[in-house]
């Protein structure tokens, strides 16, 4: 694989032969990671718990030998309807903010879902705040449709949301969520958005086979569909980590 890439990109051979300071299987370290193992999110409910506490991201890479982690998200739900397009998630006027710039990444978070119409009286991020109090977004059909702007999953993650549970997704948004690792996109089997209300307390448990969403406020449980082909990419920690794992690209740059 590496050899074929060298023929594609001669400059890559320089990276391949130069020594690097990490193992051949480096963890995916996104500069957007909001917390490390020593910090605890302050005013929010505990958001993510791992068995392996040394990881600092839900999407940390691990060697093939380690067992699948059980991932849990817990917090308040924010419920939206069908066809929430990326203009509503992050209006175009905020696209001058560059997501790979840490300051602007934070600013993007403060504008998350600001494009929702006034009918949404309860706002996702309170005016004047930088973060959301909602960890879980519940959507209907075709969540994230419209523009391909990666700012959409990024702003949701930057705001502090951990997962979206929707009936279905638009493909570019889903792909961007997986590639960035910013927010975990999950499919429900039924119209969860009709049975949950903004402010409900919920837990998502991801397990091999049967993942579920538990709404503690209503007492109902919902099965979530397996993540499918995106699973290996998410589990690896995003497209770069996946490609490194597959030997498609060399280890992380020094």
């Amino acid at each position, binding site marked *: 694989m590496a050899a074929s*890439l060298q023929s*594609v*990109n001669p*400059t*890559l051979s320089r*990276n391949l032969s130069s020594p690097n300071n990490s193992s051949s299987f480096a963890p995916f370290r996104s*500069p957007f990671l909001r917390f490390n193992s020593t910090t605890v999110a302050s005013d929010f409910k505990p958001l993510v718990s791992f068995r392996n506490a040394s990881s600092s991201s839900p999407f940390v890479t691990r060697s093939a030998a380690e067992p699948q982690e059980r991932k849990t998200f817990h917090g308040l739900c924010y419920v939206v309807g069908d*066809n929430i*397009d990326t*203009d*509503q998630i992050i*209006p*175009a*006027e905020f*696209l*001058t*903010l*560059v*997501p*790979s*710039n840490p300051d602007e990444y934070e600013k993007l978070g403060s504008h998350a879902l600001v*494009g*929702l*119409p*006034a009918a949404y009286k309860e706002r996702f991020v309170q005016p004047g705040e930088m973060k959301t109090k909602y960890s879980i977004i519940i959507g209907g*059909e*075709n969540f994230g*449709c*419209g*523009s*391909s*702007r*990666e*700012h959409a999953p990024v702003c949701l993650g930057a705001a502090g949301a951990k997962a979206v549970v929707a009936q*279905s997704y*638009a*493909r*570019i948004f889903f*792909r*961007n969520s997986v*590639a*960035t690792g910013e927010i975990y996109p999950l499919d429900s089997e039924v119209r969860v958005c009709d049975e949950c209300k903004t402010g409900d307390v919920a837990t998502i448990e991801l397990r091999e086979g049967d993942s579920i969403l538990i709404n503690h406020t209503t007492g109902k449980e919902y099965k979530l569909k397996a993540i499918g*082909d995106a699973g290996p*990419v998410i589990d690896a920690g*995003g*497209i*770069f980590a*996946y*490609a490194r794992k597959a030997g*498609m*690209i060399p280890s*992380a*740059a*020094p």
Partner: protein
Amino acid sequence: MASSVISSSPFVCKSSKKDLGFSSFTKSSQISIHRCQKKSISRKIVSVMAPQKDRSPGTTGSVKTGMTMTEKILARAAEKSLVVPGDNIWVNVDVLMTHDVCGPGAFGIFKREFGEKAKVWDPEKIVVIPDHYIFTADKRANRNVDIMREHCKEQNIKYFYDITDLGNFKANPDYKGVCHVALAQEGHCRPGEVLLGTDSHTCTAGAFGQFATGIGNTDAGFVLGTGKILLKVPPTMRFILDGEMPSYLQAKDLILQIIGEISVAGATYKTMEFSGTCIESLSMEERMTLCNMVVEAGGKNGVIPPDATTLNYVENRTSVPFEPVYSDGNASFVAEYRFDVSKLEPVVAKPHSPDNRALARECKDVKIDRVYIGSCTGGKTEDFMAAAKLFHAAGKKVKVPTFLVPATQKVWMDVYALPVPGSGGKTCAQIFEEAGCDTPASPSCGACLGGPADTYARLNEPQVCVSTTNRNFPGRMGHKEGQIYLASPYTAAASALTGRVTDPREFLQ
């Protein structure tokens, strides 16, 4: 295995059995009950299963599995002899496009993952086209163009359509404008290739018989370093459009018709392949309009088989060799829709969804506040020619502010230089001026997506706008309570003349 889906809207009812696709069934197939309700427009879709098409053995004696155009393009790009829908494959990229909004982010990721000193996989296969937020005082927007300039200098990127003088777009010899139109005009669209762009309307290039789709910054950062991308092969939905195109109908009407039929998620994760006698009669710009809005149906990509029209356009603009591919006769399609175009009428998409289809003539009581003609969807040379043709035929003045934003420098020049057929030698610009339209503005994406607050023609109040653009979700052009009716250039021009949503036949027949 193909399944044919028959829509029971009136125009399909009136067409012959052949138009309904019955000719593609053998006697042994099941034929569903075709509901034809003349009184009310039923949106019910009835699904019919067509039998597996016979496979003829190849000359080597082995059974050859037919592939669709998209499958063939991806197979070749992945250096495989065969792919089927659902396969996850690593694909070689021929062209990567980015612009001022996503370029800085994509390069930021590229550097973070491949190293500050990393070089792009091929500086001649990347096309950087500033187009989104150009003519604005917004400092961050201006900075983003500067950032792209730095990256392009450092990486020696061959195609960077730069702009430095924001006060006079004509003073920038390299500046083009709207990326999807510029890609075509500059010869970057070639049959059989794989084109990716950090913009959802990259699917526009499918008009050239290539695989073209939008990706995010992270995927783009990956492609920048490797020239490859991980893709899942999509199944193909076939749209066969036959019949003679009425003089008052445009490609925009066709795609709005289709999106209204299958909904904004009707083509999610799928290819939309367009063929038929009507498609063959369309110009390249009309084909681009058609493929442009594939993403509005959720489609992964759109394709049109290349023909003489395609080759003529492409060969005049590029010397890079290319090899077109075509769907095999025994390829499998996941759905098939047939339309008799001669029976279609001008349509609009009402607020707030591109699939909220209605006949233009049924919206004639909707009072409007403004008209916007521009964008990759409806701001090309032929779009302006069409609007000018209607204005000239009407001989009247517009009743509402009518904003014109040519997509590229070239389009702007055409608007001022090309004579409009049947007008006695007048240019579009002259006709627009006589009709009382606003002066054609500096070419860019403009207000299609709202943009910074000072963007020309941005919807800053809750007004009703008829627009030749591609999306009308809440807040798309600026104000959250703005009401956007998506329409063809003919319909937009007709609406400008009456101050209401208007069927162009009021002026064109």
